[in-house]
């Protein structure tokens, strides 16, 4: 376990602004990533995720705002403790995975021998031992992506930023990258990754920030985001019973989905507070012949869609 600064956030972003001419890529963005957490930066394409990450690692200077990374500014000294995987990545095609991991580790300050040992150990641990001395151009995309993540981890950084680490990968390789992130987090590192695929964030993140139009649309724990997701339930009634008409006096919105062999199916939007219980009570009170009552699980995807719809332009 790394001596992570549990007491203070690993990353604090305050009032970040960045424009490209008339286009405002990041617009007063603020959030913080707790040390030791897996933190998700979510948002649709063009939301400002990559620009934010580039600002965080000092590649781009912001027009306004401040970044506090591992307690300091994102200078070379601080960045020596950071691992970064850029978006739209590539590698030196004629180098070997071992040479690339060693090279990036040495750039971060490791001695040659240590860097080589780390490269060998990482490649072996992640099933790439046999590929270590082959050229990158002979590797599959998934393998190459793993190599690049390993290169970002080889110097054992306290903070890891991964920009869209799952993009372009098949489910098997996505699983492998997920495992890599979990391993890094288990070792005490703070992992921040951006994605627009909600399932990854929902499965892995402790906290997320949702960026829309360069602004923060949500910043908090995943459970908090899920609580904001619209809830619904699937119902089935016997025969030709009209559930929508029966529950209309109770002010509950019911949508007919169609008929089945035994009756009819309905989807009901659940009220925010204690929704499932109130719907069921209303059904019982109306004497509805229910054969199915199935509240749907809230997903981050639903929360994402709702938050985006509510986000200011």
């Amino acid at each position, binding site marked *: 376990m790394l001596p992570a600064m549990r007491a203070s956030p690993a990353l604090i972003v305050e009032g970040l602004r960045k*424009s*490209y*001419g*008339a*286009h405002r*890529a990041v617009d007063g963005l603020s959030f913080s990533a707790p040390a030791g957490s897996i933190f998700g930066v979510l948002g649709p*394409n*063009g*939301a*400002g*995720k*990559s*620009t934010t990450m*580039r600002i965080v*690692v*000092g*590649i*781009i*200077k912001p027009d306004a705002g401040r970044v506090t990374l591992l307690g300091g500014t994102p200078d*070379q000294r601080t*960045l*020596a403790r*950071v691992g*970064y*995987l*850029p*978006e*739209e*990545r*590539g*590698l*030196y095609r*004629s*180098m070997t995975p071992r040479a690339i991991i060693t*090279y*990036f580790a*040495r*750039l*971060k*300050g490791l001695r040659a021998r240590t860097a080589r040992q780390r490269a060998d150990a990482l490649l072996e641990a992640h099933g790439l031992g046999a590929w270590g001395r082959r050229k990158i151009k002979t590797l599959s995309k998934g393998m190459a992506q793993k190599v*690049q993540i390993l*290169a*970002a981890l080889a110097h054992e950084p306290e903070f890891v930023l991964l920009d*869209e680490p799952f993009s372009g990968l098949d489910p098997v390789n996505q699983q492998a990258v997920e495992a890599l992130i979990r391993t890094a987090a288990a070792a005490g590192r703070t992992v921040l990754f951006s994605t627009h695929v909600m399932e990854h964030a929902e499965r892995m993140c402790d906290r997320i920030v949702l960026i829309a139009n360069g602004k923060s649309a949500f910043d908090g724990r995943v459970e908090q985001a899920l609580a904001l997701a619209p809830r619904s339930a699937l119902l089935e009634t016997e025969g030709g019973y009209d559930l929508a008409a029966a529950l209309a006096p109770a002010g509950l919105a019911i949508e007919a989905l169609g008929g089945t062999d035994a009756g009819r199916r309905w989807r009901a939007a659940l009220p925010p507070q204690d929704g499932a219980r109130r719907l069921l009570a209303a059904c019982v009170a109306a004497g509805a012949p229910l054969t199915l009552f199935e509240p749907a699980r809230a997903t981050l995807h639903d929360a994402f869609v709702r938050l985006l719809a509510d986000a200011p332009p």
Partner: protein
Amino acid sequence: MRLLRGVYLIARREYLAYVGAWGFWVSLITTPLLLAVMIFTPALLSRAEPTRQIAIIADDAGAGAAVRAAFEAQERERLRAALAAHAETVDPKSAPAALAAFDARADLDAARRAALAALELGGPPFQAPVARYRITPAPARDAEALAPYLTGAKEVEGAPLFAVLRVIGSGEATRLEYWSANLTDQAPAARARTALADRMRTQALAARGLSAPEVARIEGLAPAFVQYDPRTPAGREVTRRDSAPFFAAIALTFVLWGSVFGVSNMLLTSVLEEKSNKILDALLTSVTPLQILIGKLLGVACVSATLFLIWGVLGAGGLAQTAALAPSGQFADFAGALLMPSLAAAFALCFAAGYLMYGAMFLALGALCDSIQEAQTLVGPVFFVLTIPILLIGPAFENPNAPIVAAASWFPPATPFLLMLRAPAGLTPGEIAGPILALVITLALVLMFAARLFRAGVSHQLKAADVRQRLGSAGRKRPHPAPSHGA
């Protein structure tokens, strides 16, 4: 220390990437091969050229014989030159005796045998040059009948007829007609005209009472010629060896130009690759843009140094070996000039300056672009500047201190090439120090500006489109385009 370490690692990777690529070894081998092909191909092609058959039709038998003699004299001269070169290679001490034996015999075969007999045995066998022209009997006398032979429809003695020289009339009314389907090779006509002019002058002088020997003596009159250089010790004549450094400087300038152009392109493609696949983004979290810039310049400089070292060692060995075989030959003079430490030092300095200037420019421009097509639009003007020294090679060779050449030496982008070209001309300290000072100042400014552009380019703050837009708008304020990458 940390700064140097970053620079070293970038330079090391760059160096190993190039040296480890098969393209490096291909260029290591092909460049000298290409040079050898360029040097030896003309000679090989001229050897491969078949002998051209020429027929002479003359009203005046004497005039016809004079033209024939002129062609035979030419072949004799070519054979003598080949024998002289052979003698210098196999037995330099006996060369004068061999040539004297050649000159003493009128018959060409006998002269050749006598010359070779005067040389000690050993060395490569003598290869007589293929005759350039052969006089053949005319297959017909009138133009209409000759036409099929001249166009290749018919042959004379198993070969096409290259030309017919018709000498019409005699004395001062002599007229020469040259018939040939080849309209570019005027040499046979010129040789025949000279021979006939000599004969006409000789006849005219004889008609005025001069004896044949006296006419020959007058015809042969020419001033004794000696060339001196005021910068060499008094009384010492200028020899071929003195002019050899000028030829060597031209050769080295071409090599310098090609090298600077080549390695600058390597830098351009290298940074383009890293920019387009976002490796630069990963690098920038470990090293600064300046470290990347310096590291790349150093790495590719080491690649060039490796190439020059290998070519230099092999070339110097080869040149020294070849020069040793013929110490008084033209090649030995040229080789000696190429191996002069002062020229080698000038080359090293000029390469360093040229490389840093153009390499930094190309790196900066590459950092602004995302594709080679985009880069080509920006480096076009730089290529234009690079051609200036090449255009001045001709005037500089004719007169290294010509005003236009001297003035252009002060134009820093051309200074490394023109100083190299003018190096053997005995420049004054002012002529060297002035342009070098201007070059150093410009180099510092270019490096600073390139570093800023490179930094802006690699961090996606500035793109090629912005530069074109700013240049196009000439100061007009325009909106900044959004980055092409995902925001």
